[in-house]
């Protein structure tokens, strides 16, 4: 059985990187005695993946873990609850058909909530932001695995609202197009390490509309659980 699990990651766990987190999930699920399914082959590994890497230093309200079990686990969230550290809260789980594509490849957008912008920076930021949103193309050099690359980042920003000292963003994320929230903040002359950044939600794209993984699962006819 394939499940998608939604959880929040807070507190000091923000300092735990993507791979360490994935590794921890294996331990959590083992402690919870969830019957994990393993890959075939020389060195079998549990069929686990995280929907989208969360940069170190960020907290998140909506992380998604995809896992495959050898049998149905109707009380999955309950089982896990006893084995997760207090900085993780499991929000729910949903069973998806086995043939569903890996969630990692389906995620297209991410919402971020950026807090802690200094009062004195507001006016300038408003201007910079309006300026940015008014353009149709903004080329910026960003770091990629392959090295520095020139990318048009404007189409990767789907919205950016400044309310008081809070900035709400929806950015492209995933295998097709990806903009790191730190890169955008730097482009807007903000210092990411001085801000509190939370990831609020992840979305798939269905006919040009952003839908959350659980909405997607519901629409494809699977019962929600947890």
């Amino acid at each position: 059985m394939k499940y998608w699990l939604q959880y929040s990651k807070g507190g000091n766990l923000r300092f735990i990187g993507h791979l360490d987190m994935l590794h921890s999930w294996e331990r959590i699920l083992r402690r919870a005695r969830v019957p994990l399914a393993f890959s075939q082959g020389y060195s079998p590994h549990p069929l686990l993946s995280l929907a989208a890497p969360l940069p170190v230093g960020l907290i998140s309200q909506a992380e998604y873990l995809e896992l495959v079990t050898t049998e149905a686990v109707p009380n999955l969230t309950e089982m896990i609850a006893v084995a997760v550290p207090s900085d993780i809260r499991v929000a729910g789980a949903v069973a998806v058909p086995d043939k569903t594509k890996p969630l990692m490849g389906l995620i297209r957008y991410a919402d971020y909530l950026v807090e802690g912008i200094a009062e004195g920076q507001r006016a300038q930021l408003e201007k910079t932001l309006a300026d940015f949103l008014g353009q149709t193309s903004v080329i910026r050099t960003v770091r990629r695995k392959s090295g520095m690359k020139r990318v048009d980042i404007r189409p990767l920003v789907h919205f950016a609202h400044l309310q008081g000292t809070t900035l709400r963003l929806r950015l492209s994320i995933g295998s097709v197009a990806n903009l790191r929230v730190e890169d955008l903040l730097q482009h807007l002359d903000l210092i990411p390490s001085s801000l509190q950044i939370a990831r609020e939600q992840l979305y798939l794209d269905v006919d040009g509309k952003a839908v959350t993984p659980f909405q997607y699962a519901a629409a494809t006819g699977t019962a929600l659980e947890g």
Partner: protein
Amino acid sequence: MQHILSQVEKPARYLGNEWNAVRKDHQGRITLALAFPDVYEIAMSHLGLQILYHVANQREDTVAERVYAPWTDMESLMRQHCLPLFALESKRPVREFDLVGFTLQYEMSYSNIINMLDLAGIPILARDRGNEHPLVIGGGPCVYNPEPLADFFDFFVLGDAEEVLGEILDAYAQAKSAGWSREQTLLSLSQISGVYVPSFYEVQYHDDGTIASVQPKADVPPVVTKRVLAELKPEYFPSKPVVPYLGTVHDRLSLEIFRGCTRGCRFCQAGVIYRPVRERSREDLVALAEAVLRATGYNEISLMSLSTMDYSDLAALVDDLLAKFGCDHVKLSLPSLRIDSFSIEQAKKVKQGRTGNLTLAPEAGSQRLRDVINKQVTEEDLLQAVSGAQAEGWRSVKLYFMIGLPTETEADLEGIFDLAKKAAWAHRYVKQPGKPMRVTASVAAFVPKPWTPFQWEPQDSMYVLEQKQLFLRELFSKDRRLTLNYHGAELSFLEAIFARGDRRLGRVLLEAHALGCRFDGWSEHFAFDKWMQAFAAAELDPTFYANRRRERDEVLPWDHLSPGVSKEWLWKEREAAWQLAVTPDCRSAHCSVCGVCQHLPVTTRLAKE
């Protein structure tokens, strides 16, 4: 703190929020900081400290927390922000604890200990500490000669700590409630068997720098003998060890299957100080493994001991563990293999998929020298084992050797090359079909250690060691199947100095600390020149400690301490070495009367007779 954490390379080292980390209110409790003088990833891989954490926290009246050496990036931020060294769980400054216990695993961590005391704001020298400061305790293998650290520690604990820790905490609780002075408290602690308070002993020197005498200055035992557990009880084993988020060196369940080793390799200190062999029962081990797996979620069990293949019921243990946990995809690893077909058989059972490196330790290149060191392995054994491994799918093997062993000649060095070459073509020598193996010879410099039959021997000078390395490099360059690895002789030289050093070396440690020495075990931080500068400043000759032969009747800096093994037995073993006489393992053959079972309430304890 958050602000500092976001600037360091690996903040996860300092969070203290791991699964199974123990949080207790400090109010009304004895506070114990368990310190490992190296970085998190190494410290967390150490079973001994997890055992003490478990044993101390089992007590209602005690809270034990962890503290490790901050990496250099963190250290500079801490110093910049005047943030003192803190314990991981509560983030409280270490200097506010009642007790700070360091584990002394290797000599090259001594500079880190001093740096940690300094970062904690605890006076570095024990004599400068007042009633408001913690008592600084040392334990672990280096306490069998802790003399270079005597100025920095309030007391040391010799031997297995599980039981004596409770006695120390009881005595401390009494002293605390009675409001005793530091001196009074130490005097009361010194009455506990296994506790050594160095400030109660006076060392006199001869003009030539050797020791004239070590005398008690107070009412303390003239010789402090180690504590030893007659039985490794399961309740002492950490059933809920702290699970790191960060990948560590040993990121798995470490299951200690026995303590002690009586093979009797004459260079090996562990083979003396942990005597005798005490095995856990197979039933206990399976039950412990199950409990720890449930409590941690680990996916691998490592069978830990000084020589895992010697566990008397190993094949059955491996079968039991595989049967019980194999279907949950829990791997089993055997960290040390003996050179025989039995070991290869066990390694084959636990092997999953592609095989990694096979590691074997013949230690010396010739049969003669292996007899000298009492390593009871023949060339035939090695070639059989390697060819067996080759037949099972291994393609490469790593062989550990030592250079600079007593009585070594050029022929012994050539023997290293010959043995490596034969191992590559092992199948031919044992007349089996097969393919040649890739062989890596890893060559370490011999460091004479206290409490070994070679404790009187000089270490080769750095120049001689380097010549020997060059000689080997020349030989190995002739065969591209063979790789040679060795490390700089400088670190081995310093190890030899501190391993057999006396109290005067405390001055060198202070100077080295002032010069900024730390993380000496890390090549990127090791600064040999600074150490030599420190020796010059302290007006001490390093070669006096490393390269000098001791006389039989010389008073050694550690003569007033005892692991139970007698000095006479060590000397007899030394004589046997020169006569190429082999001493069999007492676990299977007869007792060679080393002294442990005669002097201490303990005997060899096997899982299966």
